[in-house]
C-alpha cells in the first residue's frame, strides 16, 4: 500500500466511498464522497501527539473489541495515509462540547472541526471492484458460545492477538483472565459447508490459516497442545499439503476428523463435546481457548456497490463473473472488472493473481483508441419508441439509456459497446421499436413462415 500511495500515477483516496456511477466503458462518470476526517491532510505530519493526549477511549474495531482506541485514531499503525481520523460519535468535542485537547496540542494546527465531506466527480475509463470479504458471524451457532463465552474466539481474534502491534502486544492469552492457554481447540468449517444454517460453499482459506495458527501457537507457547476438529482438509496449491503435514508432524497438532456439538464453561475451563468419526467415538475435551475458523462471506456493502454499478450477484452476495472459467475477472458490464474475494472466496495468491489479471484487462482495454464489438446488438427505431423503458428495466447489462429526440420525446438508446446481444429487450418491447440486429422479429417471423411454407408445399405435393 505504501508503494501505491507514493506512486505519482496513482491517486489513493482513503476514507472515501462510491456515491454514484453513470456512463459506460471508457466513459464512466463517477462521484466519490471523501468523508471528513476532521483533520487537514495537507498539514498533518503524522506525529501522533493528538492520539497520545486524547482523553477519550472506545472499543477498537480493528482489534475486534479485544482492545481500545482513542476518539482520534489511526486504524492500524501502518495505515495509509499516516493521518489520523476523528470519530465524531465518541469524540468529546461533539459529545460534551468541552474537549479540544488534540486541537490545542497539534503543532501544525491540523485539526479542523468544520471540515465537511467532499464529493469528487471524475471520469474513468474502467472500474475494478475489489471490495473483499467479511467473516461469518459465529454467534449464529449458539451451541459454540461465540459472543457469549469470552474464551471462544474467531481466527481473526487469534491474528490480532499474535500481532505484535495488537491489543495483547503479541501475546496469545485467554481473553477472560489473560493467562496463557495450555490447550487450544481449533474448529474448522464454522459457517462454511452448511447449507442449512450457514453458507453451503467451502471458504477455501480456513484449513490453511488454521494450520498456520497452530504453528504460531506452538512457536509462542511450545508446551501448549493444539487440537483441530476438521471435516476435510483442503490444501490444493503449491506447498499447501506439505504445510498441513508440518503442522501435524513437526508441531504435533492433533487433527480429529469430526464435528463439535457443544462448547460450555465449567470451573473456568471450556468443555468441548465432539466426535472422532474415524474411530467412531464421542469425545469430551477440556480446553482453555477455542478458535473458530469462520467462513468467508460477501461484505454487506456489496448490496450498495452492486446496485450502484448494476452488477449481478449470486445467492451469497458475491459478484457474478462473466464466465466462471473463461472470464473470471470480467463482468457482464463492459469496463467493470472484479478481483479478489468479492468475486468468491479465495486466498492471497489467487487474489493477487486476479488483481494482476484485472489490471491486464484494463491495460488491454486502454491500449486501443476504439473498441471493436460484436454487431449482434440491439438498435432502437426512435420513431417507433414510446419511451416506456421496459427494455431498460429488463436489460441484463444495463445497456439502455434515455435520450431526447429532436421532437422532444424521451426514447431508449442502446449503448452498443455494453449490449450483450441477448434480445431480451426485443422480446419485451411492446411496439417492436427495439430490435436485436440479426435476430429481429421480422427475421424470426420470416424463418417461421418459410419453414411452414415448405411444409405446405410438401403436403400439397
Amino acid at each position: 500500500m505504501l508503494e501505491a500511495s507514493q506512486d505519482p500515477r496513482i491517486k489513493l483516496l482513503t476514507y472515501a466511498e462510491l456515491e454514484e456511477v453513470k456512463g459506460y466503458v471508457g466513459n464512466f462518470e463517477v462521484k466519490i464522497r471523501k468523508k471528513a476526517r476532521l483533520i487537514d491532510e495537507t498539514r498533518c505530519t503524522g506525529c501522533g501527539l493528538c492520539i497520545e493526549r486524547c482523553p477519550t477511549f472506545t472499543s477498537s474495531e480493528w482489534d475486534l473489541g479485544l482492545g481500545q482506541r482513542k476518539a482520534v485514531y489511526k486504524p492500524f499503525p501502518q495505515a495509509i495515509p499516516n493521518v489520523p481520523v476523528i470519530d465524531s460519535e465518541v469524540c468529546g468535542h461533539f459529545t460534551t462540547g468541552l474537549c479540544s485537547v488534540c486541537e490545542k496540542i497539534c503543532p501544525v494546527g491540523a485539526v479542523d472541526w468544520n471540515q465537511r465531506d467532499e464529493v469528487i466527480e471524475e471520469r474513468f475509463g474502467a472500474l475494478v471492484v475489489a471490495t473483499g470479504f467479511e467473516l461469518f458471524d459465529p454467534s449464529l451457532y449458539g451451541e459454540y458460545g461465540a459472543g457469549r463465552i469470552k474464551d471462544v474466539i474467531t481466527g481473526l481474534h487469534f491474528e490480532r492477538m499474535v500481532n505484535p502491534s495488537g491489543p495483547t502486544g503479541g501475546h496469545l492469552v485467554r481473553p477472560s483472565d489473560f493467562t496463557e492457554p495450555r490447550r487450544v481447540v481449533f474448529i474448522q468449517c464454522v459457517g462454511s459447508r452448511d447449507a442449512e444454517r450457514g453458507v453451503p460453499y467451502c471458504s477455501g482459506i480456513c484449513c490453511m490459516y488454521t494450520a498456520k495458527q497452530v504453528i504460531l501457537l506452538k512457536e509462542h507457547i511450545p508446551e501448549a497442545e493444539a487440537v483441530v476438529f476438521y471435516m476435510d482438509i483442503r490444501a490444493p496449491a503449491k506447498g499447501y499439503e506439505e504445510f498441513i503435514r508440518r503442522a501435524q508432524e513437526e508441531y504435533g497438532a492433533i487433527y480429529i476428523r469430526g464435528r463439535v456439538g457443544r462448547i460450555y464453561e465449567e470451573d473456568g475451563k471450556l468443555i468441548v463435546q465432539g466426535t472422532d468419526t474415524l474411530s467412531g467415538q464421542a469425545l469430551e475435551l477440556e480446553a482453555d481457548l477455542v478458535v473458530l475458523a469462520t467462513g468467508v462471506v460477501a461484505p454487506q456493502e456489496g448490496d450498495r456497490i452492486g446496485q450502484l454499478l448494476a452488477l449481478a450477484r449470486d445467492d451469497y452476495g458475491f459478484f457474478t463473473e462473466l464466465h466462471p472459467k473463461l472470464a473470471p475477472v470480467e463482468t457482464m458490464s463492459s469496463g467493470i472488472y472484479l478481483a479478489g474475494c468479492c468475486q468468491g472466496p479465495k486466498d492471497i495468491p489467487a487474489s493477487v493473481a486476479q488483481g494482476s489479471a484485472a489490471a491486464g484487462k484494463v491495460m488491454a482495454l486502454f491500449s486501443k483508441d476504439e473498441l471493436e464489438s460484436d454487431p449482434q446488438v440491439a438498435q432502437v427505431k426512435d420513431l417507433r419508441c414510446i419511451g416506456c423503458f421496459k427494455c431498460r428495466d429488463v436489460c441484463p447489462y444495463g445497456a439502455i439509456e434515455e435520450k431526447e429526440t429532436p421532437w422532444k420525446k424521451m426514447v431508449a438508446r442502446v449503448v452498443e459497446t455494453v449490449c450483450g446481444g441477448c434480445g431480451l429487450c426485443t422480446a419485451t418491447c411492446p411496439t417492436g421499436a427495439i430490435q436485436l440486429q440479426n435476430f429481429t422479429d421480422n427475421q424470426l417471423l420470416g424463418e417461421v413462415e418459410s419453414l411452414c411454407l415448405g411444409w405446405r408445399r410438401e403436403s400439397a405435393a
Partner: protein
Amino acid sequence: MIDKLKEAVREHLEELELVIGYGEGYDPLHATPIFVRRPEEVDRLLWNPLCVYNLATYLYGLKGKKVGVVVKGCDSRSVLQLLNEGLISREEVFLFGLPCSGVLDLRKLAERVDVGRVEEVSWQEGKILVRTREKEETIPLEEVLQDRCLSCPYPTPLIYDVLLGDPLPPKGENEALLRQVKELEELTPPERLRYWKEELERCIRCYACRNACPLCVCQDWCAAEARDPHWISMRDGVKEKWMWQVLHALHLAGRCTGCGECERACPMGIPLLRIRMKINAELRELFDYEAGVKEGERPPLLTYQVSEPKIEEPKW
C-alpha cells in the same frame, strides 16, 4: 357524494389545468367524460351508475399537464398501474376518489327495455327507473349491473388525493368474472377454439378495445398495425383477428386491471374481458400478483425470481 365532488373540484380547479369527470351523455342512458376547465363548468359533473368510463385512459395522453381525474375503485387501479410502470407521474395527477357500488351494463338493460327509445332515467334506492315512450320499468340494479361489479373486490379507490364518500366493503373476489372463465374451461380445447372463432369472426379490428384501455399507451405505434415488425397482416380473416386478441391480451399480461372497458367499448359485443381474466387468474396463482393494487409493484413478466415456487420443472 356528487355535492362533495363538486365542492372538491371547485376547491382544486385553480391548481389544475383541467378536471376529467362525468357529465350528461347524448341520451338519458349515457353519461360521458367531460373536461372541466372553468368554475362555471363544475355543475355539469354528475355521478350515477351510468358513469361506466375509465377516465384514467386519458392520463397518458395528458402527460406534462397537471390534471384532476375522477376515479372509481377500478379506475384507481389503472392509475396505480400507470404509476407503477412510470408512464405517468404522481405529481401530475390529482385524484378525486369515489367509492362505487357498481355501474350499468347496457347490454343487460337492452334485454329488458328498448334502449333506443328511452326518454328518462331516474334512480331509487338500489333500483333504476327507465321510462320509454311505451312504458315505465323499475329494475333492481343488481340485475343490470356489469358482471364485474357484482363481485367487485375494490369498490373503494386504492389511491386518491381526496375521498368523497364512505369507503365500501368488497363485494367479492371477482367470482362473477372467474365463472365466465370457468365456463369456457369446461369445454374441450377444440370446442373452445370453435367458440373463439365464432366470437372473433365479428371483430372488425376497429381497436376500440385498445383505445379504451388505460394501459394501452402504444396506440398509433401498436404492434398489431406495424409492418416492422409484421406480426399481423391486414387480411380480414379470423386467424388474424384471433392473433390480434391474443397479442393484445399477452401485451397486457400483468398490466390489465380487469376494468372491462375493452368489452364495453367493443361495438360487436365480443366477450373480451374473459381472455384477460384468464391471464390475470394465472398470474394470481403463479406469482400472487394483481395489477394496480400495490404501489411500486413490478409487473411479474418484467421481473423474475431465481427460484419460482409455483412453476414446476419441465417434465423431461
